[in-house]
């Protein structure tokens, strides 16, 4: 398939758009990454945007074209020379409609430069877009004929707005489509088998004396369970390579779970069964000695991982949720096959998007101890309000009177030393995002909100000013006022 994509990137007689369509876990992002790396190595990658729901700025449609333009300007001096006057004369262009952005950021500079290049957009379905037809695809369809030397490589799940966009009259004849989940099962299974064999032998070499732990029969079973989904294979290998457990014990746990289970939300597709079963096995085995109180902590910490508006570090999760840092680190590392737990102070993230999908879907996450319901937002907003109540105070960065923030030379250092970064910064910038999605009217939330607005409001504004995030203050208050108004109308 990489060869097919390679030949498409080189042949400008072919369609200007290549759509790699695949279900979650079929390996789209890995392929997009590989395509982008190869193009970059050849000097043919114009720009790339890897959408991700886990990050606010990477799921914001308004940022796609400006980001692509920025990268193109770094790559091509002729694009740079046409973008700089545009931004100087009209710095507000980043707030214009997607259509105007497309014209000004991409079409005009690329057309006047007359260059040939490839642009990669991965996981378009991860961008927040409420339209019935993908807004990005709509403007792409309207403009792509004007920039004939530019090709777009796009990956996404087969979500309806995106399918509608590609099937529309503007793009239908201009798009090559490759449907990843319809590749012949024997081809995928062979690849997955190779992957298992390679990784298992590597694991055996690295952790000595365990060469015989995996038989051909077990490999067959693992391949059947993967059912064509690479994400299953990757999660399995991560699970086997547990720091404190012997791989053969880990494998035995997987083998004990049935090959086909009834835990599945996407029953009509019938594809998540074994993946859900694997996730559930990992969670249940990792926390099998837990007491009910420990389960609550697991659910709280996991809700901070999967529901946070932006990923948090383990120490920020501990501080925000009121747990001991080492306890959170232990907890997260216990399920390191499901999470990427980096070095401090970097944020922890799910190893794959299918894990948050699984754990927030009651039809898929069959064990209620681990299910992250929308009500977990209530706990998160209460935690945010609590930490702001505890920590916010006047003049946390000792700013001199009558100076502009920009005149404080060592402001970043003062912010670091003030303890604002981490949990408090997250709470200040994101509390309202948890508040406004809560459907459950909890009296504690109203009480904490009243306390915050009456006692900490100006200190909160001061912190947002110093962080350069006053836009968050306006957004928070607009959203909160609207939400309260809706509550009053109920």
């Amino acid at each position: 398939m990489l060869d097919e994509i390679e030949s498409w990137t080189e042949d400008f007689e072919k369609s200007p758009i290549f759509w790699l369509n695949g279900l979650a876990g079929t390996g789209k992002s890995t392929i997009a990454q590989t395509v982008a790396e190869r193009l970059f190595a050849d000097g043919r990658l114009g720009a790339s945007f890897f959408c991700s729901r886990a990050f606010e700025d990477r799921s914001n449609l308004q940022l796609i074209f400006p980001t692509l333009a920025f990268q193109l300007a770094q790559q091509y001096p002729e694009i740079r020379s046409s973008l700089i006057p545009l931004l100087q004369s009209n710095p507000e262009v980043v707030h214009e409609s997607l259509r105007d952005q497309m014209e000004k950021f991409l079409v005009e500079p690329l057309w006047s430069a007359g260059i040939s290049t490839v642009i990669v957009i991965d996981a378009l379905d991860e961008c927040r877009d409420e339209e019935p037809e993908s807004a990005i695809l709509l403007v792409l369809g309207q403009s792509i004929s004007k920039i004939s030397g530019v090709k777009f490589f796009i990956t996404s799940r087969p979500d309806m707005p995106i399918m509608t966009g590609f099937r529309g009259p503007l793009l239908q004849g201009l798009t090559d489509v490759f449907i990843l989940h319809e590749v012949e099962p024997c081809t995928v299974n062979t690849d997955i088998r190779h992957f298992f064999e390679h990784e298992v032998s590597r694991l055996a070499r690295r952790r000595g004396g365990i060469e015989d732990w995996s038989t051909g029969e077990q490999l067959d079973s693992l391949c059947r369970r993967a059912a064509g989904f690479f994400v299953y294979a990757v999660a399995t290998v991560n699970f086997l390579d547990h720091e404190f457990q012997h791989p053969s014990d880990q494998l035995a746990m997987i083998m004990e779970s049935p090959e086909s289970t009834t835990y599945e939300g996407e029953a009509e597709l019938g594809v998540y069964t074994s993946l859900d079963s694997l996730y559930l096995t990992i969670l249940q085995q990792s926390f099998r000695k837990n007491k009910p109180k420990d389960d609550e902590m697991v659910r709280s910490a996991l809700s901070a991982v999967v529901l946070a508006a932006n990923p948090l570090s383990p120490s920020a999760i501990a501080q925000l949720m009121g747990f001991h840092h080492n306890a959170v680190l232990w907890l997260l590392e216990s399920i390191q096959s499901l999470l990427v737990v980096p070095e401090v102070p970097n944020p922890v993230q799910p190893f794959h998007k299918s894990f948050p999908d699984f754990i927030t879907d009651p039809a898929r996450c069959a064990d209620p101890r681990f299910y992250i319901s929308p009500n977990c937002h209530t706990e998160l907003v209460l935690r945010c309000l609590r930490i702001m109540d505890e920590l916010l105070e006047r003049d946390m960065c000792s700013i001199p009177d009558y100076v502009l923030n920009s005149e404080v030379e060592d402001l970043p250092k003062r912010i670091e030393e003030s303890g604002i970064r981490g949990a408090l910064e997250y709470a200040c910038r994101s509390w309202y995002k948890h508040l406004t999605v809560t459907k459950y009217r909890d009296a504690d939330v109203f009480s904490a909100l009243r306390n915050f607005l009456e006692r900490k409001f100006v200190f909160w504004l001061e912190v947002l000013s110093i962080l350069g995030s006053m836009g968050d203050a306006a957004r928070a208050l607009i959203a909160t006022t609207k939400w309260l108004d809706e509550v009053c109308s109920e």
Partner: protein
Amino acid sequence: MLTKGQIQISVDVRPLLETSGDCLRFVTEFFEVISQSGPHIYHSALQLSPHSSLVRGLCGQYISSPTLRVVTGTPASWDSCTASAGTTTKAHHAVWSPCGQLVAVGLVGRMDVRDPITLEIVSILKPSNDLTEHVPESLGFSPDGRLFACSYRG
């Protein structure tokens, strides 16, 4: 039997809505100055906010400025443009009273008569029960401003 949800709805959220709306007005009015300088919240923004502002009432104790003190001229209430920042309800119609002291706003199932400067609700008028899902077709004050009428389709 009462459920927890029913008990919670009985919490009076309206004062909280008013506080939140006033906080939004404060940010709208002083956005530029606060964006550029955090300490100006205490030096100027709070001092220059109107006497009727809830934020001023709650945080007035933090007003401090070594060199500046507002002696006179502090507005009594938010100007009408800033005041409107605190409302999010979608109004279908609005009419001014002949004296200009009131504004009536037509909403789904009710009409609010408000002070146009502070947007404080002076009165809420509700139609009969069978019109709670409807929006008034037209509204109007009598020439002397003492009576108010509205009509519904059908």
